[in-house]
C-alpha cells in the first residue's frame, strides 16, 4: 500500500503528510511533483494543504492547471482513493472532482484552532473505521473554508450521502453556532458520488500523534490502508 503526496508550488503541508505516512503509519510514500504525470505506482493520493500559487486569484485555481491533476482525475475515475486536505480540497473543487466552491470565512480572517467534527458517512475509504455520528476533533487552519453549494447541489449531496464531516459541538450537535467559517450546512468535508474522492478542510495529519495533543486523525490514514488490503 503506497501513498503519493502531490506537491504544488506553495504546498506547505506536503511534508506533514509525508511525515505522518512514513513515520507514524510506517507506510511507503513518495512525493509527486505537480508537473509529473505519473503517480509512481501509488495506491492512494494525498493532496496536501498549503497555499498553492500563494492562493492568488482563487484558492486552487492555478494548481488545477497542473499536469498532475489530469493523472489524479484518471486515478480517481478508476476508483483510486484520493484525499484532499484543506488546500487539497480547494484544488479538488476547482478541478471539478468534487462539487461546490470555496468562499472566504465569514470572519474574513484565517482561523487556526481545534474543531469537533461529526462523521456523517462511513462509506468512504478514509472514514470506514469511524462510527456514523462519531465526533472526532481535528485542527482547522484556513482563511477560505466557507464551503458553498447551491440548494439543488446540497440536496444532491444529501441524497447521495456525500457529506463526510460536519462542524459540530463536542457532543456532536450540528448547529450554526458551531460553524467556524460559514460553510453551507456546517459542511467540513464531502466526497464524490462513488465515495473514493474525499475533500475536507480540517487537517487529520496534524492530529496523528499523541505528542501533538491528539492522534484522532490517524484513523483516516489507517482506514484507507485497511480498505486496500
Amino acid at each position, binding site marked *: 500500500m503506497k501513498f503519493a503526496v502531490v506537491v504544488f*508550488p*506553495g504546498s*506547505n*503541508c506536503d*511534508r*506533514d503528510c509525508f*511525515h*505522518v505516512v512514513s*513515520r507514524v503509519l510506517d507506510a511507503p510514500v513518495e512525493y509527486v511533483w505537480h508537473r509529473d504525470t505519473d503517480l509512481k505506482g501509488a495506491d492512494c493520493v494525498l493532496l496536501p*494543504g*498549503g*497555499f498553492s*500559487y*500563494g*492562493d*492568488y486569484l482563487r484558492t486552487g485555481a492555478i494548481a488545477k492547471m497542473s499536469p498532475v491533476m489530469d493523472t489524479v482525475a484518471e486515478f480517481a475515475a478508476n476508483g483510486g482513493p484520493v484525499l484532499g486536505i484543506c488546500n487539497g480540497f480547494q484544488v479538488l473543487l476547482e478541478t471539478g472532482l468534487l462539487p461546490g466552491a470555496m468562499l472566504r470565512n465569514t470572519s474574513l*480572517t*484565517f*482561523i*487556526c*484552532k481545534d474543531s469537533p467534527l461529526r462523521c456523517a458517512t462511513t462509506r468512504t475509504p478514509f472514514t470506514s473505521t469511524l462510527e456514523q455520528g462519531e465526533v472526532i476533533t481535528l*485542527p482547522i*487552519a484556513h*482563511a477560505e473554508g466557507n464551503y458553498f453549494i447551491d440548494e439543488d447541489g446540497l440536496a444532491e449531496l444529501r441524497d447521495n450521502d456525500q457529506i463526510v464531516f460536519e462542524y459540530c459541538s463536542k457532543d456532536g450537535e450540528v448547529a450554526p453556532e458551531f460553524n467556524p467559517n460559514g460553510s453551507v450546512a456546517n459542511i467540513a468535508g464531502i466526497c464524490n458520488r462513488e465515495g473514493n474522492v474525499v475533500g475536507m478542510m480540517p*487537517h487529520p*495529519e*496534524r492530529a*496523528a*500523534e*499523541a*505528542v*501533538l*495533543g491528539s492522534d484522532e486523525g490517524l484513523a483516516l490514514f489507517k482506514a484507507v490502508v485497511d480498505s486496500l488490503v
Partner: protein
Amino acid sequence: MKLEEKREFAKANGLSDEEFDLALEILGREPTLAEVGVVSAMWSEHCSYKSSRVHLSRLPTEGPQVVQGPGENAGAVDIGGGYAAVFKMESHNHPSYIEPYQGAATGVGGILRDVFTMGARPIGNMNSLRFGAVDHEKTPHLFHGVVAGIAGYGNCIGVPTVGGEIYFDPSYNGNILVNVFNVGVCRKDEIFKGIAEGVGNPIFYVGSGTGRDGIHGATMASQEFSEEKEAERPTVQVGDPFREKLLLEACQELMRTDSIVGIQDMGAAGLTSSSVEMADRAGNGVRIDADKIPAREENMSAYEFLLSESQERMLIVVEKGKEDAVAEIFDRWELEWAQIGEVTEGDSFEVWQHGEKVVDIPVSKLTSAAPKYDRPQKRPAYMDELEPASVDAPADLAEAFEDLVGSPNICSRNYVYEQFDHMVGVGTVVRPGAGDAAVLRVPGTDQSLAIAVDCNSRFCYLDAEEGAKLAVAECARNLSCVGAKPLGTTDCMNFGNPENPEIMWQFARAVDGMKEACIALDAPVVSGNVSLYNASNEVDIYPTPSVALVGGFDGPLEGTKYEAGGYTTMDFKESGDRIILLGE
C-alpha cells in the same frame, strides 16, 4: 550635480556633514550619486550600528553550546543530536507604522530569509508587538493590519507562528514596534555563511525582480518620525510569500548540492549591504553589473538598483563551474535569476552600469571604517520623579483583579494567535496559550526546543538595567516552565533617539542588564538587532529591549502531554493536585 548638491542629497539620505566629509576623504574625489547612496546606506544606523556597537561589544557571546555567534545573518546554538537551532529577531517598526499589513508581512519575510540563508529550515515564528493606547485613533488600524500581515505571510509560507507578546501603551502612539523572530534547524556542521570567497566565483541573484520598493528604507528606519515625514513615503515594499516559499525550497535544494560558497538575503539596503557584507567577511572585492539585474520596472538607475528593498531576493556566490546546476534548480522553482557579478581580488566594491563604473569604494571603508559613536549619556531626569516604591497596594484586591484580567495588556491573546497557523509543520507540541513558552519538535528527529520572547518596557522605563535583566529572566523562567533549559539569546533593542543622552543612557544600561542576566543564566547572545530613533514628535518610546530565548531538552519528548515526558503545560490537570507558589 555640484558637490554642494550632493551634500544635500547625502543629507536627505541621512548622512551628516561630517560623515559626508569623511566619505570625501576616503574616496579622495567627488562621489557619484550611486556612491552617495551606498555610503549613506552602509553608514546608516541600521547597517553600521554606529551608535550601538561600542555597547553591544559588552554582551556575552560565547559558550560551548554556541555554534554561530553574532556577525552572520543569524546565530546558532547546539540543541543536541547533531542539530543546531538557528535564530534571530529583527525589527520592522517604521515600515509597519507606514503600512501595517505589508510592513509586518515583509518583516516576517525578512527574518525567515535570515534563517534559511544559513541552511536551516525555519520551524517557528514569534513576534513582539507594541501599539499605542487601545483608544488611540490609529491603534485599531495598526493592530489589525500588523496581525493580518504576520498571518498573511507566515501562514502562506507555512511556518507556524507559535508565540509572541503584545502590549498597548501611549508611548507607542506614534511609533509602534513590530519585532519578529524566527528559529530554524539544521545539522550543526552544515551551516552556510554570507561570505564571498574565491576570486573569480560568479555571483548569482535569485528571487523576485527588482523594483523601486522602499528606496531609502534603510535610512528611513534610522530617522525619527515626524508628521511631515509621514507624508513623504517611499514606495512601500509588498511581500510575496509565495515567491519566498519557492525561494526557500530552491535554497534548501541548492544547499544539498555542493555548489554554494556563500549566501545572504537582501534585506535593508538590499544589494548594497548584502554584497558589501559578503565581500567584507571574505576580505575580497566584488564586481556587480547592474545591467544584468532582473528588473521589474524600466529605466532604473544604479542608485535605485543598489538601494531597492524589493523583497524575496538572495545573493549567492557559486563555485565556478557549478553554474548550470544552480540555474537548473532556480528554473524548476520558477524564480528569476541572473549572474550579476563576480568575486574579485582586492577590496573594491565595484558597480558598473551602461559600460560605466558607477561605484568604486573600498569594502572595508563601508564596514569596519564606518563611523562609530560613543554618544553622551545622562541619567534621565524623570527617574527622580517616578518613585515606584511609593505606589500603594490596591485597597480592594477583588477590584484590582478584575482590572487586571480585563486589561488589554493581560487579556487572552487567542483573537490574535488563532489567526496565525500555529500548527503547520506537525511540530507544535506546546501551542500558544498552552504554556509559557512554545515547544517545537524538530521534524524528522528526536530533538525538541522551546522558545519565548519577553520584555516589560514599563519596568525598563523605570530602570533600564533591571528591566532588561527581568526580560531575560522572564524568558528563562518561561522556558523552565515548559521544562527546557536556556541555550541562547537573541534580542531586538528598540529605543528612542540616541542623540538624546538620556536615551543613550537607557540603551547602555539595558545592555548592562542583559549582559548580567545572560551570563547568569548561561544564555549567550548569538544574534540580535538594534532599532533606534523610535520616537514621534519628540516623544520617545519606552525603552524596549525585547529578548527571545531558545531552550533545549535533555532527551526526546515522549508520550502524551500528561505523562512524564520532560515537558509541561500550564493548565491545572486534575482536581486534588497541589498548587505551590515558588519564590518570594
